[in-house]
C-alpha cells in the first residue's frame, strides 16, 4: 500500500514538449511510472520520447484516448492556472503542479474552484510524489529513495531529496513521499497527507519537513495531537533565517508574530513530535 500514487497511476504530462516536461517524462518512464500521454496545445498528433508517448491538444482529448487518472503539470507559470482549470474540468481527480512562480491570486482562484469540484491538487511549486518502486509523479530523483514504511511529507523541494537520501543511507525506505510545495496558497496540505498516512497500513512512521512562514506546521501540530497514532519526526528549515518580510501592517494583523522556526518547533514538540536538528539526524530519531 501507499498513498495517492501507485503502480496503477496513469499519468498525463501537461507541457510535455517543453524542456522540463520532456526531461522529467523520460525520468518518470525510466522509473517505471505509467506515462500514458502528454498535452501541448498545437502539437496534438505528435509522438515524443522515441515515439512512445502521444501528444494531444487538450486534456479532454488525452483523457478520452488514454484514460489517464493523474496529471502532472510542467507548463510555464503564466499558463499554470489555466492548465489546472483544464485538468479539473476534464475530470482528472489528482493534479500535481510542479511549476513554480504561479501568481498568488491565480492560485486563490484555482484553489477555490478546485474545492468546489472536489479535485485533489498537490503543489504548485512542489517536487511531486514518489511511491518508491511503484510510481514517481514529478521530479523527485527516484534513485535516492527505497521502498519502506516511512511516510514523508514536505513543504520543501530539494530538502525533501536530502531527507529521502538520508533515510536511504540509514537503510530506511519510504511508503510514499509527498512534496506539497511551499507556496503561500497551495492544494493538499500537511493535515490532508497526515490523515492519508494515518490510514495507510504500509506507513508506520511519519516524517514531516516544514519551513518558516505561514501557520501550516502549527495546524499540523494540533492535528497530530488530536488524531495521529503513528510517531512523527519533524525538521523545520530556517532557524537561522532573519525575521520575515512583513506584508505591511496587514501581514502583522493576519499572521501576528507566528511563522518562526522556534514557534513551529515548540508547537510540534508539544504535540509529541520529535524534532531533528538537521536532516541527517532524522533516521536516528525514527529508530
Amino acid at each position, binding site marked *: 500500500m501507499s498513498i495517492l500514487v501507485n503502480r496503477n497511476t496513469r499519468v498525463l504530462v501537461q507541457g510535455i514538449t517543453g524542456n522540463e516536461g520532456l526531461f522529467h517524462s523520460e525520468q518518470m518512464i525510466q522509473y517505471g511510472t505509467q506515462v500514458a500521454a502528454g498535452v501541448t496545445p498545437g502539437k496534438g498528433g505528435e509522438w515524443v520520447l522515441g515515439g512512445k508517448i502521444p501528444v494531444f491538444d487538450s486534456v479532454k482529448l488525452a483523457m478520452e484516448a488514454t484514460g489517464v487518472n493523474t496529471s502532472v503539470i510542467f507548463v510555464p507559470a503564466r499558463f499554470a492556472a489555466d492548465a489546472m482549470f483544464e485538468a479539473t474540468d476534464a475530470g482528472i481527480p489528482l493534479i500535481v503542479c510542479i511549476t513554480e512562480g504561479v501568481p498568488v491570486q491565480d492560485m486563490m482562484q484555482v484553489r477555490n474552484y478546485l474545492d468546489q469540484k472536489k479535485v485533489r491538487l498537490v503543489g504548485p511549486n512542489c517536487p511531486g510524489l514518489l511511491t518508491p518502486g511503484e510510481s514517481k509523479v514529478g521530479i523527485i530523483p527516484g534513485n535516492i529513495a527505497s521502498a519502506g514504511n516511512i511516510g514523508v511529507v514536505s513543504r520543501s523541494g530539494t530538502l525533501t531529496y536530502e531527507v529521502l537520501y538520508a533515510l536511504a543511507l540509514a537503510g530506511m525506505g519510504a511508503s510514499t513521499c509527498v512534496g506539497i510545495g511551499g507556496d503561500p496558497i497551495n492544494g493538499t496540505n500537511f493535515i490532508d497527507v497526515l490523515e492519508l498516512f494515518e490510514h495507510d497500513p504500509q506507513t508506520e512512521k511519519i516524517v514531516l519537513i516544514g519551513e*518558516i512562514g505561514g501557520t501550516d506546521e502549527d495546524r499540523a501540530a494540533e492535528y497530530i495531537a488530536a488524531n495521529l497514532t503513528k510517531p512523527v519526526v519533524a525538521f523545520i528549515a530556517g532557524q537561522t533565517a532573519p525575521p520575515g518580510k512583513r506584508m505591511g501592517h496587514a501581514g502583522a494583523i*493576519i499572521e501576528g508574530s507566528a511563522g518562526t522556526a522556534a514557534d513551529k518547533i515548540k508547537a510540534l514538540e508539544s504535540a509529541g513530535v520529535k524534532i531533528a536538528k538537521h536532516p541527517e539526524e532524522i533516521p536516528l530519531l525514527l529508530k
Partner: protein
Amino acid sequence: MKLHEYQSKLIFAKYGIPIPKGRVAATAQEARHIAEELGGRVVIKSQVLVGGRGKAGGIKLAKNPEEAEQLATQILEMEIKSLPVRKVLVDEAAAIESEIYFSITNDRAKKKPVMIASSAGGIEIEEVAAQTPEKIIQIHIDPLLGLRDYQARDLAASIDLPRDHWKEFGRIAQALWQIYHETDATLAEINPLVITKEKKLLALDGKMIIDDNALFRHPDLAEMRDLDEEAPEETTARKYGLSYIKLDGNIGCMVNGAGLAMTSMDIVKLFGGEPANFLDIGGGASHEKVAAAMRIILSDPNVRAILLNIFGGITRCDEVARGILAAMDEVKPKIPMVVRLVGTNAEEGRKLLADAKMITAETLADAAKKAVAAVGKTASTRIPVMQESVVPVGAPPAKNHQKNRSVR
C-alpha cells in the same frame, strides 16, 4: 515588489480613491515650488521603502513654501534605517477628524483575499491588533466572485463609520478591491484613511506590494521598481532569476531550493559557523546562472569560504558543475570551496569538477563541517572581485543595508 507611497497613491487616484493634492520632489527647490502651487500648509514626506518614517523624523509639517524647502532639505539629507532619502512627497495638509485603517491582502490560511479595517487607524494599528483585536474587523472575499457591495457596507457598519460616509466608503472599497485584483497586489493598504473636518474621506497614506510572480502581466508596474531602494547585488540576482539575501557571516552559501538553502545555513550555524548569505539558484539552474551566483557571493568582502550544496532534481548537477567551472575560470576565487553534489546527473557533475581544486563532501553535515573548518584555516585576504563593477557610486554600505530582509 514594494511601491512607494507616492506611486501607490497615484494608482489610488487612477481608480477614484480621493488623495490629497500633491506631488513628488527630488530636490528641496522642487518641494518649494510644489508648496507654492498648493498654497497653505503642506506635509513633507520622505519616500523610502521602510516603515517607521514618521518616528524617524521623515515626515514634517511646513507652514509655508520657505519652511517646505527648509524641511525638504533636511529630510533629503536623512537616512532612514540605512536607506538614504532620495525623494519627498509634498502633500496638501489635511484637517483630520479621525483616522481609519483599511487594507486588502491575502489570507493564506483561508486561501482568500481579506479586507481589514479598524476605526483605530494610524501608525499604532499593530498595537491595536495586539491589544484590542476586537477593534480590527476582517471580511473575506470570494476570489471568484469579487468584493460584494454588501461586504463593504458590513465593514463600514462594523467599524462604526458614520452612516453619511457609507456610500463613499463603499466606492473606495470597490476601488481598492479593483486595485488589489487588477495589479496582482499582495497588499493594498490605506493607513490612515481619514475623515477630514470637511467630512470627506481622504487616503492620506498608501502602501502597495505587487506579487513578483505576476509582474509578467504588469510591465507598467514592473517599471516602477525603485532600484535605488535595494542592494545592487539583489538587483543582479533578480536579473538572473536567483534569490539572494545578504547576511553578516563569512561562509558564502550557494544552494538549490529555498528549504535546502535555509537548512544549509542552519547547519553551518549548528557546527559553529556563520552564513554570509541566503542564495537559492532555483530549479533547472543553467551555468550562466551559477556563474552569476558565484560572482554575487564573492562580491561580499566578508566571505572567507564557499559552501556549494546542490541536490539535483529539476536542476542537473552536470550543468551546475559547468557553471562552477566557468565562474572559477572568470573570477578565479582565492578562497576555499566546499562542494557537494547529489541527485540528477551527480556523477557527471563530480567528474567535471574532479580536476578543479575543491574540497568535496558526501553529506550535508560533512560539507558544513568542512566549510567551517576551512574558514578557521584561511587567513588570506582576497580580492573583492566584481564589487566595483556591481555597486554603483553612492550606494549605501552593503553591510547593514538589508538586515530586515528574509528568505520568504
